[in-house]
């Protein structure tokens, strides 16, 4: 016979999740991250469409910008970001095999990749601003229509990389304490996010720099 005792009623509310198995809880978390990423896709696509419309309507402006800028730096940057996704996979694998220090190394490399990418983006942005391609509208500049449509999606993506780097550091902090030894779901969630950021970049790289 189950009766509520006064103790149970007074118990702190977060004590009642013992009923959920680790597997169920992991599934919840993964579905949650997927739904979150679905909503992110929408925001990115608004900005991407904004750029694509310009690309269709004013191909000359875009072609000039391509000529001035070249794709060397950004290609290297793309490679770094893709490599960091690989490090991410290796980090998760290491943890699944119970290798905590290996995980820390690989996730550290992931974060480093993110930092290098942001550094590259900083160099690129300063070059562009020297060319006069800036965010705000400037009547004098021939780049006015390009600037905002270029910076909005790439900077929004850059902000996601920054958040990813901070998240990676947090994963390392928790991982070092042994938080993921038995259940690496935290690393897996970060991995979903990081791969998503990577995929978005491949889209942006293709649309903005290649075509």
């Amino acid at each position, binding site marked *: *016979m*189950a*009766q*509520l005792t006064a103790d*149970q*009623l007074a*118990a702190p*509310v*977060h004590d*009642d*999740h013992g*009923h*959920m198995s680790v597997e*169920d809880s992991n*599934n*919840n*978390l993964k*579905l*949650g991250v997927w*739904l*979150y990423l*679905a*909503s*992110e*896709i*929408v*925001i990115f696509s*608004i*900005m991407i469409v*904004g750029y694509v419309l310009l690309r269709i309507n004013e191909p000359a402006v875009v072609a000039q910008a391509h000529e001035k800028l070249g794709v060397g730096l950004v290609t290297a940057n793309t490679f770094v970001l893709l490599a960091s996704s690989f490090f991410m996979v290796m980090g998760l694998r290491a943890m699944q095999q119970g290798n905590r220090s290996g995980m820390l190394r690989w996730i550290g490399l992931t974060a480093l990749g993110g930092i290098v990418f942001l550094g590259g983006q900083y160099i690129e942005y300063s070059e562009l601003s020297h060319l006069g391609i800036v*965010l*705000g*509208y400037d009547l004098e500049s021939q780049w*006015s*229509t390009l*600037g*905002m449509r270029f910076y*909005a999606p790439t900077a*929004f993506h850059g902000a996601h990389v920054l958040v990813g780097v901070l998240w990676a550091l947090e994963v390392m902090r928790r991982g070092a304490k042994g938080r993921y030894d038995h259940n690496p779901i935290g690393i897996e969630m970060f991995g979903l996010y990081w791969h998503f950021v990577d995929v978005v970049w491949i889209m942006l790289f293709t649309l903005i720099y290649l075509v």
Partner: protein
Amino acid sequence: MATIAVPVGAQAEQNEQEAVRRPALSEYLRWSVDHKIIGVQYGISSFLFFLVGGAMAMGIRWELLTPALDLMVSGSAYNSLFTMHGTVMIFLFIIPMWAAFGNFVVPLQLGAKDMAFPWLNAFAFWLIPPAAIVILMGYFVTPAEAGWTSYPPLSTLFSGDGQTLWALGAHLLGISSIMGSINFIVTILNMRPESMTLWRMPLLCWAVLATSIIAVMATPFLAGALTLLLLDRVAGTTFFDAAGGGDVLLWQNIFWFYSHPAVYIMVLPGMGVLSEVLSIHSRKPVFGYRMVGLSSMGIAFVGFTVWAHHMFTSLQPELRIPFMITTMIIAVPTGIKMFSWLGTIWGGKIRFTSAMLFALGFLSMFVIGGITGVMLAALPFDIHVHDTYFVVSHFHFVLFGGSVFAIYAALYHWFPKVTGRMMNEQLGRIHFVFTYFGFLFTFFPMHIVGMLGMPRRVAVYDPSFTQWNQLIGLSAFVLGFSTFIVIYNVIRSYYRGPIAGANPWRALTLEWATTSPPPVTNFIDDPIPYEDPYGYGTEAATAYLDAVDESFRNGRPASGGH
């Protein structure tokens, strides 16, 4: 007759005359991860915003009592007043109010112990107070005056800092809404006990699921649009300024791609409430249960294809007819619900409780709002009444006659579960009469002045509309007064209402299969739902309900045949 197993599982004891310990009021004022506490937090705070927005509506009607400016110092002051009225009512009242009922009721109806992510749930709620402060603060600087739709260039070139604060606040509310909805989807899909199959889910859960899918997929559009708007306002970009190579219509497209689905965010949970209340209070199964569940999903998906009917006057002409057709199509799943509700109460043993009265009020008012919706979808008619009071009337019939009536029905229906006490039915009936007639005489005449050509969003109007506006204004004050009746009723019933017991309405859904208010863990054992959540009127259901009552009386499940 077969013996009836009592499948509720072991639950806490509650005698009909005995009050269960309820959370101290101070628990509602601090961070809590219990979905029931969070639900009440959502409910109280959105109701406070309802009062703020309502006071603004009273100001609007006061101004419109005469054709000239009197209450307001200028047309701009009037603009910012109705801008804040719309913003507060939509973003701070209706949408979070459904999160209130969703939070409190959905996990209980599913038989779950809590939401999937309790911490995220609390976080989503606590984003609302700062967002509200930011938005309301804007009213006291240079207020936003572009309407709740905030079309550029009104919201870019002709608005002050209040517009920036408006956009920031709306952004925060959007994030809160997305997080809340992710939580609902995961809870409904993953947190059900095994015996609660999808097709045994109460219709409120179906409605909240559909609503949450819309919120997760549509709200980011608002977030994207607001980001671009903020860039235009503070970073000097020209996304929405044609002079700088931007596109004014871009805002309208993205905004309505969010805001039309958001209309269903505001009313779908109310439709779910209606199915619950009508079925329980007329003791009959929901007519066409599966179709009602699926029609929620249908509305969710078709809702994404109709946005440009808000832009008939600014759209490329060749796109008007396709959007007219999709808009008329969305009336079909709504019609399915309407017929289901009528079929549900048809021949039932109707009990005119306050909850039932408000549900019937919804039924009669929402059908008018729905019909004027189809009228507005018809292009030739829409061009004629575009931007007139006809439109104002239409959306108040669906948002007040629909959502608010459903909110009141839900309040009277679930108040006993939340507080363990019944509300006063006599006061409830008085409240209903004042609300119903106040509402009808406020908003119905707006159809007429609209068709006669009175434009919306103006403080100064043609003197020939004066008498109509006086009728509307006086009725609006009656409507405003009616709110105080329910406030008094809630406070009085919280302290002095009769003890409700576990299942005062003799309902079959699982939130009634635990004590009122439920214990922290909701259920002791996983509850086992009755085979049909709305299977009223059968001997088996009666035996089941008797057995449930019995089990609460004894504090242990009675043993059955199986």
